[in-house]
């Protein structure tokens, strides 16, 4: 089980790798699309990487509901 901080750090690494987001910018209140310029296809790559890293699958129909970094952290925390 990862803590919220560990999940945030892991997610920041994924965001940097997939979408070139500076890790310090990957804070919970940030919107993927509006603040971090992550498009819908990059969200899919993030979901794939989350599954590899945390063993948590984010199905396509859940992906649309994940708007912020905090939403993603909560989803991973709840489903890990």
């Amino acid at each position, binding site marked *: 089980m990862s803590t919220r901080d560990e999940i945030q750090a892991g997610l920041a690494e994924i965001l940097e790798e997939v979408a070139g987001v500076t890790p310090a910018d990957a804070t919970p209140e940030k919107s993927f699309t509006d603040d971090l310029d992550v*498009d*819908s*296809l990059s*969200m*899919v*790559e993030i*979901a*794939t990487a989350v599954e590899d890293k945390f063993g948590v699958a984010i199905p*396509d129909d859940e*992906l649309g509901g994940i708007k912020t970094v905090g939403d993603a952290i909560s989803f991973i925390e709840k489903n890990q």
Partner: protein
Amino acid sequence: MTGLQTTTGSPAARISGFGSYRPRRRVTNDDLAATMDTSDDWIQSRVGIAERRWAGPDESLVDMSVAAGGKALAASGLDAADIDLVVLATTTPPTAIPGLAARIAHELGVPRPGAFDLNAGCAGWCYALSSAADAIRTGSARNALVIGGEKLTDHIDLTDRGTAVIFADGAGAAVVTGAETPGIGPVVWGSDGDLHAAIAIPEGERVMSMAGQSVYRWATTKLTATLAEAMDRAGVTPQDIDVFAPHQANLRIIELMAKRLGLPESTVIARDIVRSGNTSSASVPLALDALLESGEARSGDTALLLGYGAGLTFAGQVVVLP
């Protein structure tokens, strides 16, 4: 019960010539941005398309397929009379009956060949290539013409940026002939029918719909193994691949696949989508013909092919370029 005799054909099959037809009308991203909510930047960053070709009223699916098929025949050095199998891979026939392969053969002057249309989504041409190679090896045919032709603009909505910016028209073809040594490797094909609704023209409707995220996820996670198996079954490694020509669906998928396969820097990667858009089952032969014509790919090169799309279906194989 009487025992039946059977036939054996050529020891192997190879591609002996390519041909293609690109519609005259060039449509840029700026042209599309004038009529719908999109921009050159939006399109290029998501799918990698800069322009595409849209067929006019005098460029029907049959016209384009005949043109591509005729060029492939000329490139192969065979006469129309040498062809005894014509396969048209398409997802966009104007009507269900009749299939178009027989008429295309007739217009090319091919006398009474086996002729059928094949729908395996955007994987259709790779399915057809494999079927033709098998027919030649079993003795069902001596020389085959394998065409991928599409008029996808019949099935787009000019106000929907999800599909109108992506899909386009064109035809590509290859002649497949017998050979002493294999020029077409074993196919690795399959399907994931649980995702049948992900790319579809819903019953009774005209316009295509696509669940972009689902298809993107499927293509980038499931198909690397298909490509690896196709190389393995053909007895080659990523280091042997001179040309990588997957279906031209999305430049980001193409780049991700190339990265995950570990292809060497020297491998030429087909990026025909940049100027052709997604032409479904025409995309692989169109891309290969363009690379051969530009000299980026050469005769004798080893090429890794992959078709994938509606169904969902997929087919990968390694071939030697003519």
